[in-house]
C-alpha cells in the first residue's frame, strides 16, 4: 500500500489520535477509580472509628477500658473481617489492638503509633510488606489520661486487586478497540474515496480526442460531487477552447483557398505567355512554386483539423496492410532509384487491419518519402511489416542523416523542423509527420521514433490486427 495515499494517511492519523485518546481516558479512569475506592474505604473506616469513640468510649467513666476492648472484640471481630482496630490512650498506653487478620494482609504489631498529640479526625496510609494499610483515626476525650485515639484500618489489597483487573481489561481492550476502529475507518475511507479513484481513471482516459466525454458525477452531495462537477466544467471549457482553435484553423484554411486560387490563376495565365523574358519567367515560376507550397500547407492544416474532428473514423473497413505497403513501396521505388537508394521491402500479404485505407496509405507514403528525402545517395531504406497474434508493426528504417536526440520529442509537432534550412530545401510543408501521427491516433495506432544522428532513423507503427482473415478474400 502506498504510504503517501490519502486513505493510508487518514487512517494512520485517525488511529494515532484514537490510541492517544484511549490511553488518556484509560489513565484518567484508572486514577479516578483508585481515588474513589480509597476515599470510600477510608470513609467507612472513619465511620467505624467514630462509632467506637462515641458509643463505646463514652461509656468509660462508668465501665472500664477492658470492657470496651471486649465489646469491640465482640461487636466488630476485626480479625475475622481483616480489619485493624487500635485504641490508644493519650499517654501511649494501648487500650485495645486487634490481632492478625485472617488474610494475613498486615502485621498489626508493626503499625506505628499514631501522632497522639493531634486532635480531631485524620487519615493516613502506612506502607507495609503487602500493600498499604489505610487508617482513619478519631480522637476522643478532652485531655490528659481521658483522651483516646481510635484507629480503624483496612488493607487496600482488595481494591488494588480490583484496580489491577481494570488495568488488565484496559490493556487488552484498548488494542482490540483500536484495531476495530482502524479497520472500520479504513473501510469507510476507502468507500468515501472510491469516487476519487473513478474520477482519476476516467480523467486519464480523456485526451484531446475525446474531450466530449465527462467524468462520472457521484451524487453524494459532498465535496467529491462538487469536485467532479467543477472538473467537468473545466473539461468543457477546455473543449470549447480547443474546438474554437480547431474551428479557427479550419476556417482560416478555408478562407485562404479562394485567394490562392485567384493568385495561382493569375500567375498561371502570365506564365503561359510565350513572349516573356527568361528572368520574368523564372520569377513567375518561383512565385507559382510558393503558391503551391502555401496551398499544400493549407491542405495539410485542413486535413489535420479534419482528423482532429474525428472524421477519419467515418470509414472503417478491413484491408491488407501488407499488400498496401508493398504496392506503395513499389510506386515510390523510382523516387529512391533516382537517388540511388535501395528500398528493401519485407512484407507479406494477409496482414489485415481495420481503418481508412487511403489515409493509412498516406502514412506509408509520408514515412517512405521522409526516409528517401533524408537518406543520402547510396543508402538503404527498409520497409518491414511484422505481426504477432494481436498487433501489426509497420517499420520504416533508413540509414540516413538521422534526427538529433534533442529533436526527437518534437518531430511529430506541426511545422517543426529539425534544421530549418536543410529540410525546407527538400520541400514539404512541415506537416507530414503530424499528419502521420494524427492518422495513427485516429486509427488507435501508436507511432514511435528512434534515431541516432548520422546513423539513421526508424519509425514504428503498432496497430491492432484483425484476426478474421476471410476479409482479405473479400477485398
Amino acid at each position: 500500500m502506498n504510504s503517501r495515499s490519502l486513505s493510508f494517511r487518514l487512517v494512520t492519523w485517525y488511529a494515532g489520535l484514537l490510541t492517544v485518546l484511549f490511553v488518556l481516558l484509560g489513565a484518567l479512569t484508572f486514577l479516578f477509580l483508585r481515588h474513589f475506592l480509597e476515599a470510600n474505604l477510608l470513609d467507612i473506616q472513619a465511620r467505624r472509628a467514630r462509632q467506637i469513640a462515641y458509643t463505646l468510649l463514652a461509656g468509660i467513666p462508668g465501665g472500664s477500658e477492658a470492657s470496651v476492648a471486649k465489646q469491640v472484640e465482640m461487636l466488630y471481630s476485626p480479625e475475622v473481617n481483616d480489619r485493624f482496630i487500635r485504641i490508644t490512650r493519650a499517654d501511649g498506653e494501648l487500650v485495645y489492638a486487634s490481632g492478625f487478620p485472617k488474610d494475613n494482609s498486615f502485621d498489626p504489631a508493626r503499625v506505628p503509633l499514631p501522632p497522639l498529640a493531634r486532635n480531631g479526625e485524620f487519615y493516613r496510609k502506612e506502607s507495609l510488606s503487602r500493600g498499604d494499610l489505610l487508617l482513619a483515626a478519631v480522637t476522643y476525650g478532652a485531655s490528659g489520661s481521658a483522651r483516646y485515639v481510635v484507629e480503624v484500618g483496612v488493607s487496600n489489597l482488595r481494591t488494588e486487586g480490583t484496580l489491577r483487573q481494570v488495568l488488565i481489561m484496559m490493556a487488552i481492550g484498548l488494542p482490540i478497540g483500536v484495531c476495530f476502529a482502524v479497520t472500520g475507518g479504513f473501510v469507510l475511507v476507502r468507500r468515501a474515496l472510491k469516487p476519487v479513484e473513478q474520477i482519476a481513471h476516467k480523467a486519464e482516459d480523456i485526451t484531446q480526442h475525446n474531450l466530449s466525454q465527462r467524468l462520472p458525477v457521484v451524487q453524494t452531495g459532498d465535496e467529491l460531487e462538487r469536485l467532479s462537477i467543477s472538473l467537468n466544467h473545466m473539461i468543457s471549457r477546455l473543449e470549447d477552447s480547443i474546438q474554437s482553435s480547431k474551428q479557427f484553423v479550419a476556417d482560416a484554411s478555408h478562407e485562404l483557398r479562394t485567394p490562392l486560387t485567384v493568385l495561382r490563376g493569375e500567375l498561371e495565365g502570365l506564365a503561359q505567355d510565350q513572349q516573356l523574358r527568361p528572368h520574368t519567367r523564372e520569377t513567375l515560376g518561383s512565385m507559382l512554386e510558393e503558391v503551391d507550397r502555401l496551398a499544400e500547407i493549407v491542405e495539410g492544416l485542413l486535413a489535420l483539423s479534419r482528423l482532429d474532428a474525428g472524421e477519419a473514423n467515418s470509414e472503417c473497413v478491413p484491408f491488407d496492410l501488407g499488400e498496401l505497403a508493398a504496392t506503395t513501396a513499389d510506386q515510390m521505388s523510382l523516387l529512391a532509384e533516382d537517388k540511388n537508394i535501395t528500398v528493401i521491402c519485407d512484407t507479406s500479404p494477409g496482414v489485415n487491419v481495420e481503418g481508412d485505407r487511403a489515409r493509412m496509405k498516406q502514412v506509408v507514403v509520408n514515412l517512405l518519402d521522409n526516409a528517401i528525402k533524408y537518406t543520402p545517395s547510396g543508402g538503404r531504406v527498409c520497409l518491414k511489416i511484422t505481426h504477432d497474434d494481436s498487433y501489426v508493426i509497420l517499420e520504416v528504417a533508413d540509414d540516413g542523416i538521422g534526427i538529433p536526440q534533442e529533436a526527437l520529442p518534437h518531430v511529430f509537432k506541426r511545422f517543426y523542423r529539425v534544421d530549418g534550412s536543410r529540410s525546407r530545401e527538400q520541400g514539404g510543408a512541415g506537416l507530414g509527420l503530424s499528419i502521420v501521427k494524427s492518422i495513427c491516433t485516429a486509427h488507435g495506432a501508436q507511432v514511435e521514433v528512434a534515431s541516432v544522428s548520422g546513423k539513421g532513423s526508424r519509425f514504428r507503427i503498432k496497430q491492432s490486427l484483425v484476426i478474421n482473415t476471410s476479409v482479405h478474400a473479400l477485398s
Partner: protein
Amino acid sequence: MRILLVEDEKKLCDLIARALKAERYAVDVALDGQGGWALADTYEYDLLILDLMLPSVSGTELLRRVRRKNQEVPILILTARDATIDKVQHFEAGADDYLTKPFAFAELIMRCKALLRRGPMSRATVLRVADLEMDRLSQQVRREGRRIELTPKEYALLEYLASNPGRVFSRTMIIEHVWDQSFEGLNNIVDVYVRHLRRKIDDPFPTKLIRTVRGVGYGLGENADI
C-alpha cells in the same frame, strides 16, 4: 458553346471567365445565387459552373432548382469544401463534377471540355503527337517508327499528357490521375517520372516534345522550347 458561371468572388469570377473566353466559349457571369437562377431559368446553357457558398440562394439550392427544370445540362461544382460527405451529397443532388479550390486553371478547362463533350476525352485507339505514336490497345509507344519501351507508370503518364496535347498539366492533376490522392503534395515523384520519360522519349531525338512550365507543370507538344 455557352457557359454560365456563378461565383461570388469577383476576382476569381473574372479570372475564370477570362480563361474560358480564351478557349472560345461564351460565358455569362452571375455574382449571386438569385442572379444565377434568373439566368439559368431564362437561357439554355451547355454547362453550369457553380460555387457552393453564394449569397441569396446557395449553390446547393441552385443546383436542385436547375436539376428540377433541366436534367441534361452538365454541372460542375466549384468549392472550398472538400469533405467526402459534401461531394457525395452534391453528386446525389445532380452534380456531374466537383473541383475544390485551389485548383489549377488547366484542370478547370480540361474538366469543362470533358463535360461539354460528355464522354472520355479521346477514345481513339492511336494517339499521335508530332512523330510520337501511342497504341492504346497494345500500349506500345513509337517515335519516328522506333519502338520505345516504357514502364506501366511511364506509359500512364505519357498517355495522360498526350490526351490533351499542347495543354500544361499541373503536378497535382498528374498525381491525381496517374497515382492517387495519397501522393498529394509529393510533387517530386512527378518530376522524377518526367525525367525518366524524357530520357526515353526526347533525349535520343532532335525535337523535344515534353515541355516544362516552371511552377505550372508539364505538357506534351511540338514547341517544347522552354
